[in-house]
Structures are given as structure tokens and as C-alpha cells.
């Protein structure tokens, strides 16, 4: 147990000690080596890098240098990432073998290791992280602490205003004042639907009940989205603190966080956070000596996308099959075990403490008319800077893809971007300048979703994409209601038929009928939005469907049965890349001469297509 005074003291002392993390001008001999310890970089041996650094430092008896494991820096494509403070040097794609050189050259000799410096879009090497275009257009609110602190050290969180919002709320504010502030901020749910957060809190608070619950939805199901995971891995206390605040605001004393079991690191970090918060008396009975008590438990998901739907998630916490409940009643009235329950997403919670500390006016000054604040996106697919980005609402898709994302690799063209995952839609080239907020995305047939943003280049077939998403929904449908259980399956069957070249015009009609009907009759959000990928590809790429059906051609070659993989003799320069990459040795040709594909051997895997530097294969 720590008293309020002690925590304030920790904040003050630790903040001074950690000034080096935020201030590059600080005059100190100390160096902090920050190593990303998120899932992406961990997969690329970042734990080994940390180990090596520590070993070398010990062996060489270097003083004033600390190695810190942090959360995600965002630029996953360049991982594993190492940053050296205070100068803020950004090293990309570091291997454990590079540690020696970094210590020797950078730390001891004081010179940057040139070859490990990250290149910006213009091709120039960048010394200081802040100079990277990737970061320049971002505004980090939810991700503020990710990559700055060691997520397993509560003191480091406290140093950067951690648990200050809780202090303010418990000592100076009434529950209504807290909710007023959230309402005024204009924050909307970051899980996808964008329901006003303050309103949700108000509704739950106003329901009478002796027992209420606060739930955090960390069942990030959208494949290709990893915002929530990164926040939990990089800054678990901010979510925990906000949950406690929510508990105070609505009158709950128990919270649950439902995390995907596929996120072991996030689970572990959050568990550590809970333990530390309990030790400090920030969780448990009579927090800060007030009457308010609150505790949190972790519940693991077990692999069901539908559990991201709030009522399905509640069912799952209760130990049942994660089948959504019919609404109304909403969780605010009847949630966990029938009790009033507030359920918000990780990213939503991550904004709460900042709103409380900086004020609603500050928050609502960011963003657009209807969508305030920032949004975190997991940028993936055919884009140079795959990673995690946080931008003010209203940023255009073009800025995200080209400025932050660094454009499309391999000189390819942008074809479309998908937001909202399997529930969302694709955004074609003509809408690249759409400002991203809840309303505009809806208008063009997509949705904000939880924040997956997948970029596709012109080698991608939109029929195949729709088929991919549909097969996902069919796999993940809970099977409760008829339209989703059977309807999506029938849609997938038709798409498969079309992609095999067996589709007829009537199939396109049927597909459209189903796509228009299911949203109205399915029980939950997953079912209602399941046809969106089909509807939006229909809207923008209808011709591609017709090509598949009428001409029996898939121009990208992704639909194998309709693929005609040929080498354009006018473009081929005989570099041999395709030949080298072909897994079945179907390509022949002399160096410098036009190459040929043996159709009897070709398995239409498309490897040659992507490997050709001259776009000669198609």
C-alpha cells in the first residue's frame, strides 16, 4: 500500500529521472536504450537483443546506460526497433548481432551506426526519430506512452502523470462531473460503431442496481488489426486506470477485461499491471482512502471473432458459447449476469485519462465536427510502412497511405483500402481524399471499425477479397440466426462459383439480393455487417465481377481458374527473378532473354507475378 503522498512523490522523483525519455536537450551523461518489446518485434528476436545489450553492458562495465523494454513504437515494418535516448536515434531492423556495434560505436564512441539508421520516404537516412515522416503527421494520445515507458514498471507510468487522473476524479470530482467531461469531449466508442462514450456511461450510471460491472473489450478480432494489443502491451496501466475511473463514474466495484488468448504478451502485461496496482493500493478497497473500492479480473477469449460483439463477450465471460443476445435490453440495463454493465473498448479507455487531465475542450479541439480526438490504425497490406499509426480524426486516407505509410511498395498502384475489417468496406482510389471520420466512411460504404486499415495494390482481385472476407464471416458466424448462418454461406458459395469461372449473371443478382437482405434481418452487428465487403466491392468494382462472370477472366490472376499468367514479351528483360522464385520450376529462359511459363507445370501461385520488377507478368 502506498499513500497518496507517496505516489505523488514517486511521480515527482521518477519524472525527473525519466526526463531523458522526452527531452533530447537534457544535459546528462546517461543513455537509455529503448528496445521494442511488442509482439511484432518480439517475434523478430527483440528479447534476445535486450539480453545481449545487458550482457555487453555488464561485461564492459559501462555505467550510466540502461536498457528498457518498451511497448510498440508503431513502425513494425522496420522492427526490431532500438531507440537511444536522449538523442532519439532510431535504429531499424536490428539483429542481436548488432548490439555489440551499437554499444561500441554509439555508446562508447558517440557516433551513430549509419548502416542501421532508418531511411525516410525520400531515401535519406534519418538520425532523429522525430524527423521521420511516419511520425510527423501523427498525434499520439492513446499511444502516448507506447515506446516511452517500460510497461511492466508502474513507477514509469506514474512518472508521466499516471494515476493522476484517478486522483483528480476521486478527490475532486463527482461521478456526474466525470461523465459530463467525457460527454463534452465528444469521445465516441473506438470499437467500431462509434456510440458516444459519455452517453453510454450516463445510461449505465442512471440504471438503478446494487451491483454494476465495468468491462473492457480487448477481444480484438479484426484480422490484421492490432491497436488494442499494442496499447495493452505498451501501456496497460492507462487502460486499467480508466477502468477504475469508469467504475467510479457509474458506481461499479468490479471490472473484467476480456482479452484474446492469442495475445499472451498483452495478457501477461495486464496481469502485471493489476498486481502492481493492487500492491500500490490503486486497486482494491478504499482507493486513496475514499469510500470507493474497485478490482479487476482478466478473462481470456478462446478464438471467436463474434465475442468482440459486446453481448457475445458477456456470454463468454459467463462461461457460455459466445452467442450475441438480442438487443434491447442493452448491457447498460442488463449486462453481465443481468446486471447493468458498462462495456468499452481498449482504445476508448486509453483516451479517458488524457481527457480527464487535459480537459474536454482540449480533446474536442482535435478532430472533425462529429468525430473528436484521434484514431489509431493498424496499417497493413501493400504499404511500405506497415505499423501502428495514430492520427487526428479528419486526416485523409491519402495522407495515411502515402505520407505516413510511405506509399505502395514495388512501384505498384494503389487499388483500394479496407477499413472496418470483415464488417467494413473497401475504399477505392477516387475516395483517397476522404477525411477519415465516422460519418464520411459510412457515406462511402465503409466504416471506421476498430482500426484495421489494409492497403491493396493493383495485383489484388476484389472478387477474391470479398471471398476472403466472406469466408472469414462464415467461419466466425456463431450460427445463432438464420440469415447469418445460412445466408453468408450461400453468399460465399456464389462467390466461389464466380471465382471458379462458373458464375452466371443470375448469381450476381442472387448475391446482391442476399447482401441487401441479410443486414436487415440478422441478429447482431457481425451478421448485419457481413455483406459489407461484397456490397462495397460491388459498388466500386462491379466491372470486375462482370469480367469474372461474362468474360471468365480474373485480370489479377488471383482467381486461379480464371488466371492467365503470361509473360509480356515486350516488358520482359530476362532478369531471371521469376525463374528463381518459381517453386515448381515452370519458368525457363536464358539470362537477358525473354522468359516463358510452362503452363503444364504452373500452379498459378502468382509468386512470379509479384517478383517481377518490370511488371511484365500478368
Amino acid at each position, binding site marked *: 500500500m502506498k499513500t497518496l503522498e507517496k505516489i505523488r512523490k514517486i511521480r515527482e522523483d521518477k519524472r525527473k529521472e525519466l526526463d531523458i525519455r522526452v527531452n533530447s536537450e537534457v544535459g546528462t551523461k546517461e543513455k537509455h536504450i529503448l528496445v521494442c518489446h511488442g509482439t511484432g518485434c518480439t517475434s523478430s528476436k527483440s528479447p534476445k537483443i535486450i539480453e545481449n545489450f545487458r550482457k555487453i553492458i555488464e561485461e564492459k562495465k559501462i555505467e550510466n546506460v540502461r536498457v528498457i523494454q518498451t511497448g510498440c513504437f508503431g513502425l513494425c515494418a522496420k522492427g526490431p526497433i532500438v531507440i537511444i535516448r536522449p538523442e532519439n536515434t532510431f535504429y531499424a531492423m536490428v539483429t542481436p548481432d548488432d548490439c555489440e556495434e551499437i554499444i561500441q560505436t554509439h555508446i562508447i564512441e558517440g557516433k551513430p551506426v549509419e548502416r542501421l539508421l532508418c531511411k525516410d520516404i525520400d531515401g535519406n537516412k534519418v538520425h532523429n526519430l522525430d524527423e521521420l515522416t511516419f511520425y510527423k503527421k501523427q498525434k499520439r494520445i492513446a499511444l502516448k506512452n507506447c515506446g516511452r515507458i517500460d510497461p511492466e514498471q508502474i513507477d514509469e507510468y506514474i512518472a508521466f502523470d499516471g494515476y493522476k487522473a484517478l486522483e483528480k476524479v476521486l478527490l475532486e470530482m463527482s461521478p456526474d462531473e466525470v461523465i459530463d467531461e467525457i460527454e463534452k469531449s465528444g469521445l465516441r466508442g473506438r470499437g467500431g460503431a462509434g456510440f458516444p462514450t459519455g452517453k453510454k456511461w450516463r445510461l449505465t450510471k442512471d440504471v438503478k442496481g446494487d451491483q454494476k460491472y465495468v468491462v473492457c473489450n480487448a477481444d480484438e478480432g479484426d484480422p490484421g488489426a492490432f491497436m488494442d494489443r499494442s496499447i495493452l502491451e505498451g501501456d496497460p496501466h492507462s487502460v486499467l486506470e480508466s477502468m477504475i475511473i469508469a467504475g467510479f463514474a457509474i458506481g461499479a466495484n468490479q471490472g473484467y477485461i476480456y482479452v484474446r488468448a492469442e495475445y499472451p504478451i498483452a495478457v501477461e502485461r495486464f496481469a502485471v499491471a493489476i498486481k502492481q496496482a493492487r500492491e500500490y493500493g490503486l486497486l482494491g478497497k478504499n482507493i486513496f482512502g475514499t469510500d470507493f473500492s474497485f478490482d479487476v479480473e482478466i478473462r481470456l477469449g478462446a478464438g*471467436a471473432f463474434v465475442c468482440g460483439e459486446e453481448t457475445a463477450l458477456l456470454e463468454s465471460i459467463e462461461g457460455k458459447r459466445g452467442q450475441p443476445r438480442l438487443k434491447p435490453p442493452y448491457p447498460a440495463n442488463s449486462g453481465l449476469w443481468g446486471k447493468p454493465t458498462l462495456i468499452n473498448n481498449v482504445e476508448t479507455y486509453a483516451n479517458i485519462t488524457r481527457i480527464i487531465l487535459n480537459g474536454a475542450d482540449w480533446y474536442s479541439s482535435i478532430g472533425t465536427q462529429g468525430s473528436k480526438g484521434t484514431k489509431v490504425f493498424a496499417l497493413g497490406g501493400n504499404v511500405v510502412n506497415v505499423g501502428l499509426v495514430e492520427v487526428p480524426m479528419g486526416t485523409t486516407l491519402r495522407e495515411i497511405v502515402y505520407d505516413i505509410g510511405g506509399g505502395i511498395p514495388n512501384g505498384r498502384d494503389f487499388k483500394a483500402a479496407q477499413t472496418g475489417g470483415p464488417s467494413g468496406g473497401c475504399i477505392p482510389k477516387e475516395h483517397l481524399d476522404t477525411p477519415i471520420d465516422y460519418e464520411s466512411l459510412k457515406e462511402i460504404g465503409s466504416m471506421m471499425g476498430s482500426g484495421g486499415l489494409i492497403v491493396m495494390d493493383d495485383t489484388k482481385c476484389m472478387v477474391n477479397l470479398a471471398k476472403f472476407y466472406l469466408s472469414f464471416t462464415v467461419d466466425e458466424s456463431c450460427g445463432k440466426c438464420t440469415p447469418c*448462418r445460412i445466408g453468408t454461406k450461400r453468399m460465399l458459395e456464389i462467390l466461389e462459383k464466380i471465382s471458379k469461372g462458373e458464375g452466371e449473371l443470375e448469381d450476381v443478382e442472387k448475391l446482391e439480393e442476399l447482401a441487401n437482405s441479410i443486414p436487415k434481418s440478422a441478429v447482431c452487428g457481425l451478421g448485419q455487417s457481413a455483406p459489407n465487403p461484397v456490397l462495397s466491392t460491388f459498388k466500386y468494382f462491379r466491372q470486375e465481377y462482370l469480367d469474372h462472370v461474362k468474360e471468365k477472366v480474373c485480370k489479377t490472376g488471383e482467381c486461379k481458374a480464371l488466371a492467365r499468367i503470361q509473360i509480356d514479351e515486350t516488358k520482359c528483360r530476362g532478369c531471371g527473378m521469376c525463374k528463381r522464385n518459381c517453386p515448381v520450376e515452370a519458368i525457363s529462359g536464358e539470362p537477358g532473354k525473354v522468359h516463358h511459363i510452362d503452363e503444364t507445370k504452373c500452379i498459378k501461385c502468382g509468386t512470379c507475378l509479384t517478383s517481377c520488377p518490370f511488371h511484365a507478368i500478368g
Partner: protein
Amino acid sequence: MISLKIDNKDVKVPEGTTILEAARKVNIDIPTLCFLKEINEVGDCRMCITEVEGRRGFATSCIQKVEEGMVVHTNSPAVIEARKMILDLILSNHHRDCLTCIRNGSCELQALATKLNMTEVRYDGVKNEHEVDDSSPSIVRDFNKCILCRRCVATCKNVQKIGAIASCERGFASCVSTVGNNSLNDVNCTFCGQCIQSCPTGALHEKDSTKQVWEKLKDPNSYVVVQTAPAVRVALGEEFGMPIGTNVTGKMVTALKRLGFDKVFDTNTGADFTIMEEGTEFLKRLKEKDNLPMITSCSPGWVKYIEMNYPENLPHLSSCKSPHEMFGAIIKTYYAAKQKINPEKIYVVSVMPCVAKKFERQRDEMKENGLYDVDAVITTRELARMIKQANIEFTELKDDIFDDPMGEATGAGAIFGVTGGVMEAALRSVYEISTGKELKQINFEEVRGQEGIKRATIKIGTEQVKVVVAHGLGNAQTIMEEIKQGKADYQFVEIMACPGGCIMGGGQPIVNSKTRATVNVREKRAKAMYTIDEKSKIRKSHENPALKQIYREFLGEPGGHLAHELLHTHYEPRKKYNI
């Protein structure tokens, strides 16, 4: 009261009414499939969707409560189109072999297809293929016909509190399954058959025994005797379009004779034997304070339940066989001897409201001298099918009476088929036998009625006897927990596996969801039973002259040596899962 408009009609209903109920009040029909009143109100199938002005998406009328000023359209073009699409999708994954389906003509899906004018299946595609589980003696599970309404799951889990089947898998592969998709025979199923009663299609049905019965009827060397349970006569008429609660005893007897049975007996007489034996057993146990409370044992689903779930409490069970088994034993001994027929040639068929009786019949304990007491059990539904197959115009039949010498039963035997009936019949006899005085008030209203658990204290002589009546296995569980925890102070317990008793048994005519929601079927069938009792000349089992004669000529004393050999049995702990 809430005022709203449904299809331009003004409706006033109490708060908390659903759109579906409100519409039915003004004779507007909204189709349903997964809805089963008070049992399965989940809104899964989406058939009952309606349009509510000012609302995004459709409203689920079986769940959605009415709101003041609501304007509902139940049959707008959009609604009809959406419903048709949903039904189309359901049919696309259904084995549409209606002509040879056991539920042809009584299927809710079929009725809906007719109603919605489904002349084609537009969105056809792959179907799920499942093996048919017909290895249990009682219930056949044909998942190919399942439409995933999950009414059976809700009934099994929430009403009967068994959970032998559950929703399994997900998405298109979703199905209703036992653990590991094992046969019902090998899991914790009690064969009560309530799942069949809740199934709208032919996915769950009784194991058909009519073939064997026809074979025997054709065989000149067999002496085929049929007996009919008390509850059959008040429901059989429904299969021929007669109103619920019609007593068709006379027509049923005529039909059975027309079918070619050599003798038509009344299981009600068997019930009278049960009362004599059970009553005697109870008085003895009461006196000796031996394993009290004593619990009735005539419901085979209940017996299987206690064997699986409360084996340590088996000594509480009465050792009496159920009425038709007792009667079968008497037919193959006393009656065979008297008529000089070789018992091996006698084939006893029981017409029962029950599918668990099919299981009970083939238990090893139900055998005497290598012969089963009963050779075949057919349900009320199977009898109706036989009558139809024989081209008998049931509604036009004249009345006939049961054959002698065991034709006349008492009113006490008649009420065996309704919850509280066994208790009441037993109390009538126990009272008079133990006190030697005549009962002034013959009806025991305390144990009648539809309440799940009925408790009463009955004064018998100087003794205050505490009795309790439970029906439905969910209620049985409550009583068993009380007994297990030593909290029970009763002396006599009646338990029937089916909610309402045998009149609502798993073998009875199936009542569709809409009728179940709007008509009190239980009450109507029960009323018919009590009317039979009221009209009976003799209303106490121990006064049955046929029964007295058989005890005198053959069995000796109730509870005596021979009676024990023929009319009593024993039970053994049973594993819940044989997997």
C-alpha cells in the same frame, strides 16, 4: 395499458406484452419457428420479424415488447420478402423429403412453406449431412431435418434440467448434438421425449414400433393383446382433428378391435394393481419408517433419471413396476392360464403416451420366465398412424367397451395419467385400508393442478402424512436435492417426468407452437381425465371387482410373495455417460 397500432388496427395490451402476443390478440398472425412460449423465446430464426415505424432494421416480434404509440406492420412487402428469403435459406439446408417424413402433415416448417407460397428454393446450396441416430429404443434423432430452432435444447436444459443435447459447433456447421455426437442411448438422456414435443419438424421422433405390431397382427399363431394407458384416450382424438381434451375411449376401443387385436384391455386396471401394491408398500414403510419418503416409480423417464443422477437415493423408490408392466405380467400368467393360452404365444402391446416406456419395456428387470411382460410399446401417435393406415374413419366410429375379464377399471386408475393422479388414487385407498373408514371427500384437490411442486399434509387416522407431488424433471431435481440434503420431511412423493404428467407425455399428439401459446392444453386434457374419474361407477382401486377376484384366485395378498415376484422389481445405479 399500452396503446399501439398493428397493421392499422388499434390494440391495447398490458405493459410487457410482446408484439407477437399483441398481434394475436387482434387475430393478426405472425409466423414463428423457434418460438416456444416460456421455453424458447430467443428470436433466432427471424421468421417473426416485423416492421416498426421509425426503427432501423426489423423488430423481433416474439421478444420485442410493445411500446406506447408503436406502429407495427406485420405484413408489409419488405417484411414478406425478408421472411421468404429466411425461409428459403432454411429450406436450402433442409432435407426436403416431406412425403416420407414422419411429420408430413404436422410439420411447422411445411405449414410455413405452404403459407409463404414457397414454390422454389432460390438460394440452394450445400446441405449439412448427418448420420441418423436411431440406436436408442425410444428416440430417433435425424439432424438432417433440424432447422436449429433449438426448442429441444431449451426444453431439455431449462425445463427438464437434463442437458443431454446442446448447441454445438458454430456457423454453418452449427448443430444440436449430444456430447461427442454420441447416441442418445449412451448419454444422460432420460427418454422423456419432451424434445420431440417441442420439435417443429421431423428431426426428433419416436422409434417406430408399428411394423412389429403389424407383423404380429398378421401372424395367426400370435395372440395379440393390446392395453391402453389412461392418458391416451384424452389425446388420441387430436390426431383426427377433434378438439383438445376430447375423451375418445369408445372410438379407440372400436378402432383397436378393427385393427385386429385379439383382446383390448385397459391399463387403468393395471393402475389399480399399482395402487394396491404401492399403497400396501407405503403403509408398511410408513409403519416401519423404512426409507421414507417413498417415491413413486411408474414414470420410466423419472426412474432412469434417478438411477443416473441420484443412485444413492434409489432405496426411496417404490419397488412397484409401472401399471402396464404389472398388467403385462398378469396377462402372461393369470390370464394365459385362465384362457389356456401358451404365454409364449401372447404378444402384449401397450399403447402409451410415452416414449420412455419403449426403453422400460426392454429392461432386463421387466422379464418373467424369459418372457418380457410387454412385447411392444407404441405411442398415441403411432396408434393414430396405424388407424390411418388401416383406412379407418376414426371420427365416425361407434363406441365399444374394453374386453373382460379386466375391462372395467376405476376412476382412480383413470387419473394416473395426470400429475397428482397417482398420489390421489393412492391416498383414496391408503386412507380407507388403513383407517377402515369410508372417505367423505374423495377428491384430493391439494394434489391437483398445474403447479410444478404441490405440497400437502393429509390426515390419515392419527397420522399426519406429508406428501409432495412434482412433475417435470426440473421440479424433480428440486425435490431430490431436498432429500439428498436431508431437508425433506415428507413420507410420500409422486414424481412424473413430464410437465403435466402423462397427458403431456413424449408420445402424445404434438401440439404446434401457436396452439401451445394460446390454448391451455394441459388443463383441457387434465379436465377430460378428471371427468372420466367423476363418471366412473367405482372410484377407488381397492374396490375394483376384477382386481379383487385376481388377488383372491391368483395373487393372494397385496405385497405377498407372488405379487412381489410378478409386480415388483428393483433398480440399479446407472452411468450417465457410456462413452
